[in-house]
């Protein structure tokens, strides 16, 4: 029997995505001052973080509530595996298919977005439905 998927917590996925895209735009504009190549490389580096992470958030909050605790943890493990696999595939695709690419801009923006993502989730937390 499939567990009921209740929505107890409101996940601000849209707000997180908006803040992440604004941060990515600012970082890309800063790199754009260096060169156009660095600008689009930085944007791609940010996208490599945002897309798998959005998938992770979507899958983690698929199940909520104490009755679905085992499904919640299983979903989290599966989502994390797929997130890391997607990140590796995206990096491999960028390094093989996109030519030329500014590697420092790409990796720096990715690292900054990874750290910023944790801070954003800490500051804008999911809230219970009122």
């Amino acid at each position, binding site marked *: 029997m499939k567990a009921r998927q209740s929505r107890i917590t409101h996940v601000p996925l849209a707000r997180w995505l908006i803040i992440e895209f604004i941060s990515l735009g600012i970082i890309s504009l800063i790199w754009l001052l260096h060169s156009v190549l660095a600008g689009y490389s930085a944007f791609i580096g940010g996208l490599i973080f945002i897309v798998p992470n959005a998938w992770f958030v979507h899958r*983690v909050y698929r199940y*909520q509530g104490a009755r679905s605790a085992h499904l919640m943890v299983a979903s989290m493990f599966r989502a994390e595996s797929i997130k890391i696999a997607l990140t*590796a595939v995206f990096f491999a695709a960028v390094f093989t298919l996109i030519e030329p690419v500014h590697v420092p801009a790409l990796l720096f923006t990715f690292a900054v977005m990874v750290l910023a993502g944790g801070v954003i989730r800490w500051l804008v937390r999911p809230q219970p439905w009122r």
Partner: protein
Amino acid sequence: MDISMVYIAASIILGLGALATGIGFGLLGGKLLEATARQPELSNQLQVKAFIMAGLLDAVPMIGVGLAMYLIFVVAG
């Protein structure tokens, strides 16, 4: 520089990153289940905290994946 050393370096980065993430997520998921079984009324707050910790937990391995892909496809490729 021998190219095989680059592949060894990338595999060490990926392997240790995967090992550390596996241990961390195992502990996190186990504690989440344990705490939810003890206090089911707090399950939503626990899930939020586990989710935030998961984001912090995989930050360094994710950067490691990026560096390893760079080593494999750009430095060695």
